């Protein structure tokens, strides 16, 4: 009898734990979803983001090291060049070696990873990359407001970071204050890949995009590339950056974090 009660209690306990785990995957913040006006909007209307989970921190060098240990095809010397160009993980000393700065960089965000590699990592963790709108929605929050993209001080702070060159080694993740969603470092640390980065229709000739794009892109110029807020230079810089990328690029300040559906 006693044993049975104990078993039931234990079971209830574990059930409770797993419900909690389901509600809040490890290291992720629940994003309640909402409506906002992204910088480049494909429609006249605002965009609604459904609830989802987002990593509180960008993926670190140490975490990515675990991934390449478990997945040899993503090691530097094995990776197919179609999925990652030459600079892939170039700041590491070797396939499984963070180098002499290992202590310093293990908790810093991993960079020099291609979109394909970021995507493979997310899949390995049972996650995915956030969509552009999900990322922008979370990034438009300051530490006390969910939508701060019209907040001059907030925008200027973001802009200031974009204006500064990279530090020699990236600081570790999670040093600043989280935003209202409990997510860290959406600004001020690195650029981040999103799942659909290649939906940004900015070409090199940004000034003529409206007309010239029709040659490059079907249906563009009608509504595809209408900026909703020309003065939001911070977001403008982000979109221009995404526009310059291809999926196999490895860039020194470009990393990622993962998302997960709300299920």
């Amino acid at each position, binding site marked *: 009898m006693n044993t049975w009660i104990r078993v039931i209690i234990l079971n209830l306990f574990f059930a409770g734990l797993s419900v909690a785990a389901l509600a809040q995957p490890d290291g992720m913040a629940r994003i309640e979803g909402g409506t906002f006006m992204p910088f480049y909007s494909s429609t006249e209307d605002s965009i609604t983001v459904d609830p989802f989970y987002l990593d509180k921190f960008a993926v670190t060098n140490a975490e990515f090291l675990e991934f390449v240990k478990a997945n040899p095809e993503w090691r530097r010397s094995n990776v197919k060049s179609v999925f990652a160009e030459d600079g892939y993980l170039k700041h590491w000393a070797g396939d499984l070696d963070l180098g002499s700065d290992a202590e310093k960089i293990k908790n810093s965000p991993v960079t020099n990873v291609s979109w394909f590699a970021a995507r493979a990592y997310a899949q390995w963790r049972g996650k995915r990359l956030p969509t552009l709108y999900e990322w922008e929605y979370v990034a438009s929050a300051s530490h006390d407001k969910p939508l701060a993209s019209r907040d001059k001080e907030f925008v200027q702070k973001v802009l200031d970071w974009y204006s500064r060159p990279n530090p020699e080694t990236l600081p570790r993740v999670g040093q600043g204050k989280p935003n209202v969603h409990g997510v860290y470092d959406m600004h001020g640390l690195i650029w981040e890949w999103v799942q659909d980065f290649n939906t940004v229709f900015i070409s090199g000739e940004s000034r003529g995009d409206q007309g010239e794009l029709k040659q490059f892109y079907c249906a563009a110029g009608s509504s595809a590339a209408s900026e909703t807020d020309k003065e939001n230079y911070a977001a403008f810089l982000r979109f221009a950056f995404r526009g310059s990328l*291809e999926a196999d690029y490895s860039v020194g300040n470009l990393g990622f974090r993962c998302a997960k559906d709300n299920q």
Partner: protein
Amino acid sequence: MNIRPLVIAILAMAIMFGACSGNDGEREQQSKKQMAAGDHTAHAQMKMASEEPTDESIYNVSSIWLNRYGQKVKLGSLRGKVQVVAMVYTHCEFACPRILADMKRIRDRLSEEELKATNFVIVSIDPERDIPERLRNFASENELSDTNWTLLNGGQGDILELAALLGVKYKKISETDFTHSNIITVLNKEGEVAHQRKKLDDDPTPIVKNIKVLTS
């Protein structure tokens, strides 16, 4: 400025490029990717028989697609022929009909021999509506033969991955429409990007010339 010297300059450059490509078919490849791919061409031909796709081959993806008959297809099954690929959607009323027409024009400029070594691929970016049945109807309406045309329906993530590999951008802009790159890509027999026509109004001559070189 006076337009005449400009025209002459463009002509002169065209002639120069023409002359170059006579010697070296790889020279006129334009995008960065293609340059990288070009280095691998000889390499690729050597490895033709082996199982493993080459490093630059898009056949490294493991995604599974449905053709117009609902049969499961891996991209690797396209290996061995030169592929001319476009990512479009069949309900498109803007550029896609034009892209298809251009692909047909390219086809018409190939010899019988070259056509045997070439296949045309249409990948839908609208998988919800472009189900195999729709693709089958679309193919018969447009007289896209079995022997030279492959139409593919795939999962959202797989489409996104292929678009990333081909440098194609696309985005759903309404319930019925997409905006997307007007790119036509030529893959060599190993599935490496060998040439791309990026703009609608670009002359099809370079792409035809490329296919001719790749099929020979």
